[in-house]
């Protein structure tokens, strides 16, 4: 259709608004409330135009086009009407552009410029009211034009439900919760409101006075924290070699949204504490060395030790936090140069059961569906995931879906914050997932809610399952897992009768001695329901670290090369040998991470090469880990900071971090994203691929790592599922594997049409086994562990960034009000937590998030570290430790002052 604007005829589409057509054709109309993300609210009235045949002025932002419409945006009346609105807005506060952060990127300023408003017709005195109480955001009430974008986005996009409008008339203003200062509110500082504010009313505190927007170079890259893989833009001050500000990019998977870590946890890259030079331990002290000295020493050590004892005394660890390229580099080095398969990484401590369990059931060990599909699902089944803290951006989508009418069931022993939005919260006992899920499956089959056709046509052994599942009537399951029979039936019915079910789980499922069984049971459930291979369905593990998916994909695993090519297959071995230009690759599966360490004490592991893995702090039972690490003959650590593990290293090599080199990360829905170099690394820090290449050279193998991209290309040449992904193709948007050829569009959904990667789906018989260490008289509490919103892992990044540490400066042990009352503990008191393996002293936080008998803390703080207490019991298949359950005892040490107040929903201290 065609419409006329200012006497020119333009092409228009069916659902266009007049504003859409105007913008496409470079006709400026001021818009101060409309934004694609917050929709057409028609409030500001700055966008008015005149339409022939319609009475009065029309708001162009929500006016649908009609064929032959005749619009004027430039008549005197229209300009006057627009001017008045902008004029009034200018007058509504105090706009001193000279000193405003937003000058140059402000939409109100633009509107004034275009309409020729130099100063307001009206005069008003500034109130000077600002809210600077929060760590990262400043609210300048004098610059707020009440457009409502922030309120809308906080409630409808990130669904943190903090902002609202208060008062009315001219007193109308934005407020947090029930009119408290932002710093005291439930605001999680995601910064989404800052990003969408059209003026300088909401600004980032940390970039204040650091320069004007135009001064900064914008570098698009990927977030270095959790596995969501958010796309972001770094605003870089080139002269200072520093990132000044971070904004979200409007691209999948995050569509502009970020969490507090991604947006505000960036200074660690410029921390003076960064490792800058190679260090060699001499007489018990780390001394600065040259790269040649360090690399020669390592070469020498590998040569003599491996020469004497064989390649298997060498073990290496990649990492879920470093790039695909660097993981590939370390695995290729281990296999091609040392000739052992003793390579593993920290997926062992988190999602190894996912990889094993799902590969067993479906043939592919990764999430089956994509993040965006959450919005299309009918029922979201969350189990063992504290997503508002560990995967905040995924939780935004989940909450959005619920707002739009999807239903949600949250199963977790702890009342995690996402339960606040659930239709049904099901508290089950720690470590009883198998009987709980089996009980549900039984009930589903009993009631004929299962998908018979799917089971018959697309799975291998449906009759077996139907037989053994009879062992789990709901009554029996209920007895074990502590969920009332009625509630179990309710859950089963919801699952059984929903049109689309998406199961989302995380480490609450995997970090158990029954981790792999737990995953297999989830796979059973979805195969019984037939919710696989379709949009809005599937089994969707939330991978924990930024690149833990990628580290697996790159073959930093003892049983597979990159792209899950088995090390035991003679034929593929030859193919890889040919491409790598080496011979004698090992056909023997390597050691898993815990085994590597155990073998240190028996002298079977002598050299450990550790890249980006703070082993001492991340493995359970720290005292034991320390013994093991100490027993090593030679420990090499490549990292960006000193940490508990570097203390024991013989050689420390400084690595580059996420914004100092190119590379790729693979996120939780198998999307490969590009990282770009934005700043120069400190001192002499070098990428891992360079280090491996240098060592290869010294040991007589050309690994062909001349750049990150060259390393990727080397992988791609023998890559199967990633063979079609090139840097060129992912410049703007990631690609989801499998993507075998360079013309393949990527695969958002696995196992479509019921065709599993392995052919037919496989049901596994799973049985209840209790946790390894049950609470008893002496150690009556169950300790479960995890992550918090404000920190990440052992804190090397978050505790070296400005602000996060202020918000959450010390560990808190979460304890239920019932237990606390019984033991006369109140929030703020110091308590001693003791397990059979060690003890820590930590501050208590009395909270309803903890059920009776269960306490919880994290492994972020070296000062009070959960892993001193955790149990070194492992999943029987994957050797993943049982971080989620061990027995401890608690004693009150001293009285303290309560620091936890408004913490319930957002886990704020």
């Amino acid at each position: 259709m065609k419409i006329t604007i200012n006497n020119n005829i333009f092409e228009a589409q069916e659902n266009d608004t007049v504003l859409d057509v105007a913008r496409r054709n470079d006709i400026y109309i001021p818009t101060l409330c409309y934004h694609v993300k917050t929709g057409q609210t028609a409030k500001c009235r700055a966008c008015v135009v005149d339409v022939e045949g319609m009475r009065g002025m029309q708001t162009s932002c929500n006016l649908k086009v009609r064929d032959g419409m005749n619009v004027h945006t430039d008549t005197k009346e229209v300009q006057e009407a627009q001017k008045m609105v902008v004029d009034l807005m200018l007058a509504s506060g105090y706009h001193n552009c000279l000193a405003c952060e937003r000058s140059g990127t402000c939409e109100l300023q633009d509107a004034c410029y275009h309409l020729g408003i130099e100063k307001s017709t009206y005069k008003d005195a500034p109130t000077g009211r600002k809210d600077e109480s929060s760590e990262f955001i400043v609210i300048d009430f004098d610059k707020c034009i009440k457009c409502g974008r922030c309120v809308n986005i906080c409630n409808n996009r990130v669904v943190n439900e903090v902002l609202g409008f208060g008062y009315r008339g001219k007193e109308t203003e934005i407020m947090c919760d029930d009119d408290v200062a932002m710093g005291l509110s439930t605001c999680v500082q995601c910064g989404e409101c800052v990003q969408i504010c059209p003026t300088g009313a909401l600004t980032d505190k940390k970039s204040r006075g650091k320069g004007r927007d135009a001064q900064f170079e914008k570098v698009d890259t990927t977030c270095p924290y959790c596995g969501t893989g958010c796309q972001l833009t770094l605003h870089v001050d080139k002269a200072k070699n520093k990132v000044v500000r971070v904004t979200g990019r409007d691209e999948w998977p995050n569509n502009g949204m970020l969490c507090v870590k991604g947006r505000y946890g960036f200074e660690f890259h410029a921390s003076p504490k960064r490792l800058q030079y190679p260090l060699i331990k001499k007489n018990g002290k780390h001394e600065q060395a040259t790269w040649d000295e360090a690399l020669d020493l390592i070469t020498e050590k590998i040569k003599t030790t491996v020469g004497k004892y064989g390649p298997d005394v060498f073990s290496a660890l990649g990492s879920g936090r470093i790039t695909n390229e660097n993981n590939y580099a370390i695995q290729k080095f281990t296999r091609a140069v040392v000739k052992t398969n003793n390579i593993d990484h920290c997926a062992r401590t988190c999602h190894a059961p996912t990889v094993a369990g799902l590969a067993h059931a479906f043939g592919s060990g990764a999430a089956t569906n994509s993040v965006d599909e959450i919005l299309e699902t009918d029922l979201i089944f969350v189990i063992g995931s504290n997503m508002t803290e560990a995967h905040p951006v995924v939780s935004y989508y989940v909450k959005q879906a619920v707002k739009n009418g999807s239903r949600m069931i949250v199963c977790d022993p702890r009342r995690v914050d996402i339960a606040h939005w659930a239709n049904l919260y099901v508290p089950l006992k720690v470590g009883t997932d198998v009987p709980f899920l089996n009980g549900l499956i039984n009930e589903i089959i009993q009631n004929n809610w299962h998908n018979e056709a799917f089971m018959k046509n697309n799975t291998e052994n449906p009759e077996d399952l139907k037989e053994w599942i009879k062992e789990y009537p709901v009554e029996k399951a209920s007895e074990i897992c502590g969920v009332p029979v009625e509630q179990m039936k309710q859950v089963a019915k919801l699952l059984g009768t929903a049109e689309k079910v998406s199961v989302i789980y995380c480490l609450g499922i995997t970090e158990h001695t029954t981790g792999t069984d737990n995953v297999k049971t989830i796979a059973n459930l979805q195969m019984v329901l037939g919710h696989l291979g379709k949009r809005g369905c599937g089994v969707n593990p939330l991978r924990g670290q930024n690149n833990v998916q990628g580290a697996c994909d790159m073959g930093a695993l003892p049983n597979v090369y990159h792209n899950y090519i088995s090390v035991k297959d003679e034929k593929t071995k030859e193919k890889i040998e040919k491409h790598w230009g080496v011979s004698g690759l090992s056909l023997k599966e390597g050691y898993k991470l815990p085994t590597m360490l155990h073998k240190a004490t028996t002298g079977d592991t002598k050299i450990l090469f550790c890249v980006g893995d703070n082993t001492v702090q991340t493995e359970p039972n720290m005292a034991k880990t320390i013994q093991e690490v100490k027993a090593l003959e030679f420990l090499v650590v490549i990292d960006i900071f000193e940490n508990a593990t570097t203390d024991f290293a013989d050689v420390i090599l400084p690595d580059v971090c996420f914004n100092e080199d190119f590379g790729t990360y693979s996120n939780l829905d198998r999307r490969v994203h590009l990282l770009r170099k934005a700043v120069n690394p400190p001192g002499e820090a070098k990428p891992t691929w360079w280090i491996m290449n240098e060592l290869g050279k010294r040991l007589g193998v050309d690994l062909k790592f001349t750049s990150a991209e060259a390393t990727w290309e080397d992988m791609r040449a023998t890559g199967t599922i990633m063979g079609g992904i090139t840097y060129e193709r992912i410049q703007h948007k990631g690609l989801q594997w499998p993507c075998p050829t360079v013309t393949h569009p990527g695969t958002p959904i696995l196992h479509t049409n019921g065709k599993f990667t392995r052919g037919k789906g496989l049901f596994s018989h799973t049985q209840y086994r209790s946790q390894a260490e049950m609470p008893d008289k002496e150690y009556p509490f169950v300790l479960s562990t995890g992550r918090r919103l404000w920190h990440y892992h052992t804190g090397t990044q978050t505790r070296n960034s400005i602000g996060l540490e202020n918000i959450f400066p010390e560990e808190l042990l979460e304890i239920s009000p019932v237990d606390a009352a019984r033991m006369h503990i109140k929030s703020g008191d110091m308590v001693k937590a003791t397990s059979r393996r060690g003890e820590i002293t930590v501050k208590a936080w009395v909270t309803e998030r903890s059920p009776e008998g269960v306490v919880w803390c994290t492994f972020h703080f070296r000062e009070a570290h959960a892993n001193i207490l955790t149990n070194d019991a492992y999943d029987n298949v994957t050797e993943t430790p049982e971080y989620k359950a061990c027995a401890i005892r608690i004693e009150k040490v001293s009285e303290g002052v309560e620091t936890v107040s408004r913490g319930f929903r957002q886990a704020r201290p």
Partner: protein
Amino acid sequence: MKLLLENAHIEGIRYYEIYRKHGGYRAAEKALKMAPDEIVEEVKKSGLRGRGGAGFPAGMKWSFLAKPEGVPRHLVCNADESEPGTFKDRYLMEFLPHLLIEGLLISSFALGSNLTFIYIRGEYAWIVDVLEQAIAEAKTNGWLGKNIQGTGFDCEIHVQRGAGAYICGEETALLESLEGKRGNPRIKPPFPAVQGLWLRPTVVNNVETLAAVVPIMNIGGEAYSKIGVGRSTGTKLISACGNINKPGVYEIEMNLSVEEFIYSDEYCSGIPKGKKLKACIPGGSSVPIVPANLLFKTAKGETRYMNYESLSDGGFATGTMMGSGGFIVLDEDQCVVRHTMTLARFYNHESCGQCSPCREGTGWMYKILKNIEYGKGKMSDIDLLWDIQGKIEGNTICPLGDAAAWPVAAAIRHFRDEFEWHVTHPEEAQTRNYGLAHYAEPLSTVTV
């Protein structure tokens, strides 16, 4: 003729037994035997226009109600009555609660609403008790609840109190508030008849509109349409206040002249102390003020009557509006500037704050008026006021913007000299009033 308040004076009419004895629930008996669509037809025939302010034909609104399969529909009675000068609904509910309940029952039956709400102004707390008492009585006697009078029709009525915001009388803000949200008006379309309460088809009507359904049922739509004149059918409640001898709520037929209404003994009984009439706001604070010389006679010199057409004769240039029937009379001692300032303050305070012209514009109008009133105004301020009101009008989401603009526009249009006098005589304006305008009071032909 009285159709609504006929029995209002009867002792105890607020109770079911007495109301019933005086012919109560006869209309309901009749209606429940009819097909719902027939009732809608009768209301259409009656020509009944909405009494909440806009005067939209009720039958027409009812016939717009969408009826998608399986989606509940609702009737909502707007009892928010917060317009300055309007207090007719209060009177009706306080003295004749069963009349409203009966009207609600008939209308709910006609529209298919099993869950009907009365959204009542928060300050009318004691009336909530009156209404709830009446609802309980109606329920006991089988006029509400399940299977009403054996027809199989179920209906519950809930009374919800507002929290003191004028804007919650605007129908979509009312619905938001009823849903438990901040009372911000919605963008229309979609209209409530398509997406109302909880996005279900909803009819929102004023108390008086719904009460009028009872006499319509009793005498028939045809007969009702014959009362009054032209498109102003039936009777209308007027709440009269200001400088008159007998303020109160009057039920009038709409062929009564304005002059008679002010001066006749049956109604307002003239102006106290023999003062002269200066101006009148005949339809609640939102409608344009009319100077005395345009009140009794239109610009064309014809008699002005108390009805929709006659009051708006001459458009905004020389006429005004019927509005919600809040009739405010100003005598020669009143100051139009001060009066307009008071209204501007009200609208600024009551603006929900969504639309910038309304939020900021009403604020600035109040500030400027305050300056003029307190002797700090400039001549250019009057033009600025004129400019602002002109740009608020028609440029907002809901009609509150218009309602705030019209009184200011009309005041400047008719009393510009008084504004100018305030600017030129800043000190004098603090000590005395301007008095009558440049025109003389029209002589009353009615003898007091």
